[in-house]
Structures are given as C-alpha cells and as structure tokens.
C-alpha cells in the first residue's frame, strides 16, 4: 500500500515537472501567501569578487521554486497549542541539546504563555529544533534562507527607503514587550512582519560559510571550509541584509533569544 502511494506521488511529481506546471494557479490557504518562482534575492555571490561570477562552481543562482509562506509569524497562542499536543517540547521536558536554558523562559508555566505579553504576539525564545518541530507538526517546514529573503524582498520593492526603515528598527534597543502580529502593512506578496517585529529562524541558517575572522582577506577561513566557500556581497551598501546574515552566522540551533521567532513555509498544493 505504502509503496503504491509513494509511486503515485512520485509519478505525479514527475508529471508536474515534465509539464512545468508548478501550481502557480493553485489557491493558497488563507493564512499563507504564494511567492512565485523567481531568482533568489542575491546578496552573496559564490567565489566572486563582488561581480556575479558566472557560476565557476556551478553556483550560479538557480531560481527559487514557487512556495507558500505563512503571512504572519507563529504566535504564542499557536505555540501553546503545539506544546499541548507535543508536551515533549515543553520547557521542563526538552533536552538541553535541543533548546538552551532560556527556552520559553518568559512563559508563566510549561503550557501557559502568561498575560504579560499578548497571546497574538510572536512566540520567541524558541530554538531552531523547536521551530522545526512546530512546522513539521503543521505539515510544513521552516523557510530556507533563499525563500525568506525572496519573500522579504517583496518582488523587488525593497527600496532604499525600506532599507532605512529596517536599519532604524535594527538600531533600536528592544525593550518593549512584543506587539501582536499582522498590525503593519503587508508587503507586495501579502506577508506581514518580515521586518520591524522579530528576527526569524530559517531552515538552513547554517548554510552561509563566511569566516568570522575579519582579518582573513579571502572572506573565508580556508582550513575551516571545504570547497569554494568564499562569498562576496553583490551590494556592499545593503547593511540590513549584512546584519541578517551576520545574525544567522552567529547562531547555534539550540539558542533562544527574546527577539528571535519564526514562521513556516511549504510547497504549493498541486492543482
């Protein structure tokens, strides 16, 4: 039975690929936005000198296939429901290797987010492992860096003014309790809160191989990395993106912080 189902799924996928139908016309669920296939929001180019090197290592950016992404970050209310269904992820039970000692420390108790912060504020103080488990439980995945950045670029409308706004947010100390999700204006894809509320986990946040050694002129520490891991920025003036990559580069998967949350993504439904 299972092999047969798998075979049908594989066949369907093969047909979809052969006919090039990538579900762009498919309806997205109300709480997710469809981001059409297109080039990644290129920030780094592999092995290059700032020029988009023509894929010396085959690294020329392939298009990001169409995907669905949650319109809003996952809230404390939603995460509480997950914890009730998957109590092994409650803060008193989770293993240290999967979440650090500050995991959900701002909650009133194991399953109660408390009243200090609104239930529709984004959940933070969650590790990558917990965020990944939540998305899997929902039948989704964390967005990849390429997906997140493509959604956040909003179809090329990430203008200098937008960058300035983002940088102003990045430069403000985070002292206030978090507000609720979905309050600002959505971007061109109908996605809220990509900037201005929280930082977000991505599936492959550990995929940027840049050296943390600033004295290394090559941009990577050769003995540490295999292959042509060197990267250079397409647009060195894009400090906002630099900051996101720097943050991702500093994380370990069991870390939690008060301003780091997540949303989920998945492939579009087949028509």
């Amino acid at each position, binding site marked *: 039975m299972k092999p047969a189902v798998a075979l049908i799924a594989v066949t369907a996928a093969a047909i979809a690929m052969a006919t090039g139908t990538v579900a762009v016309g498919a309806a997205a669920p109300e709480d997710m936005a469809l981001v059409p296939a297109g080039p990644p929001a290129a920030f780094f180019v592999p092995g290059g000198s700032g020029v988009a090197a023509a894929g010396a290592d085959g690294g020329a950016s392939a298009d990001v296939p169409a995907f669905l992404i949650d319109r809003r970050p996952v809230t404390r209310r939603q995460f509480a429901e997950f914890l009730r269904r998957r109590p092994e992820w409650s803060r008193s*039970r989770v293993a240290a290797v999967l979440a650090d000692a500050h995991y959900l420390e701002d909650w009133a108790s194991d399953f109660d987010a408390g009243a200090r912060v609104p239930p529709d504020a984004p959940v933070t103080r969650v590790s990558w492992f917990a965020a990944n488990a939540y998305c899997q439980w929902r039948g989704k995945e964390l967005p990849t860096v390429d997906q997140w950045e493509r959604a956040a670029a909003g179809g090329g409308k990430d203008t200098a003014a937008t960058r300035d706004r983002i940088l102003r947010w990045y430069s403000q100390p985070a002292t206030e309790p978090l507000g609720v999700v979905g309050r600002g204006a959505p971007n061109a894809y109908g996605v809220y809160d990509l900037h201005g509320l929280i930082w977000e986990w991505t599936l492959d946040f*550990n995929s940027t191989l840049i050296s943390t050694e600033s004295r290394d002129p090559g941009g990577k520490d050769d003995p540490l990395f295999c*292959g042509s891991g060197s990267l250079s920025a397409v647009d060195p003036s894009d400090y906002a993106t630099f900051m996101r990559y720097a943050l991702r580069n500093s994380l370990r*998967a069991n870390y939690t912080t008060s301003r780091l949350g997540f949303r989920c993504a998945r492939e579009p439904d087949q028509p």
Partner: protein
Amino acid sequence: MTRMVVVLAMALAVLPGAARAKDEPPHSHGDHQSLDVDRPAPLSGSSIYQSDREWTDMEGQRVRLRSLRGRPVALAMVYTHCTTACPLILANLQLIESALSPEARERVWLVLASFDTERDRPAVLKKFAAAHDLEPARWRLFHGGRAAVRELAMMLGVRYKQKAGGDFDHSNVITILDRDGVVRHQQAGLGPTPTEPAALLERLAR
C-alpha cells in the same frame, strides 16, 4: 571525571528524550526490519543521541546514532566525492586511530556521516571504507536523509551548503563524543595534528 559524567547522566535521567519518531514519515526500506532496540535508559539531555532520526549504515541496516552509545566516538561529516578537504579529515581521523593504544582502539567508534544524501548510498560507503582500509570493527559510515543530515549538522554546529553541481561547501570539524554521546571536544580546521582529540579519546576509552 568519568564518575561526574555518570552522575550527571543519572541526574538528567528524569528528563525523557524528545521523542519525535512519530513526526517522521514512515520509511519503506524494503525488507530491512532491523531497527536497533531502543531500551529506555538514562540519557543526558546534552547527548546528541536525543535525536531519533534514522540513518543507514554501510551494510544497509537502519540505525540511530544512539547505537553508538557505550563507546567514545570520533566523528566527522564528509562526503566521499569530495576531493579537497575530506581526504584530509579522513587522514586526521586515521591519525587519531593510530595514536590510540591497542586496547583503546578496540573500544572506540570512528564515524563518518555523509552530507551526500543522493550519492553516498550504503554500497558506495562500503566501497569507500574498503578502499581506505577502514577496519569494520570500529569504523561506522552513515548515510542519512536530508532531515537527519541537517539535524546532526545543527547539533554539531557544522555549516554546509550543497552547490548546484552536487558538491558541498562545509566546515571541517572533528567531534569527540563521550560514551553517552555528549560533545566533549571539537577541532575545527585541517591544519593541526589531532593530538588533543586523540589523547581525549584515549582517556574516554579507558
């Protein structure tokens, strides 16, 4: 020190592991039925054996990382088509192996886990092991799916990215685990002779 670790493991025994096997889609690996027996046993919350992901060894047996429990481990993530850094990582692991006393050598695992979910199938790993004279009594080579590879890399802090040609950029790290799968040491980079990891593994194997 060993006693301390044991005490710690016992103290943490009340924490049940995050059992996520039920979140995994069922695999159909033909007629292989041989899941390793998961006896409920105290396991440190810091152990990477908290992971329930399945791997396949070079004999085609489905295993969890937990099957390594009981021996200290020197582990690296590599892929066998790699022609640059990975041969050096393997050479470093072999240096560690040869630095061990004959007694310790019988009581450790030397583990290669592959990034290459597509090409490094068990048969490929078996050929690779034979070609490099890796003694099957202590060398374990693991093939895993994307989720297993990503989770292990996340637990070890290993960075990697698959390139369009199928090769991988990845950080080069040798990790030493104690008998319970707790990370005790990590050596990054290819340069230094692995004397410290070798000495630690020798101590852990006693």
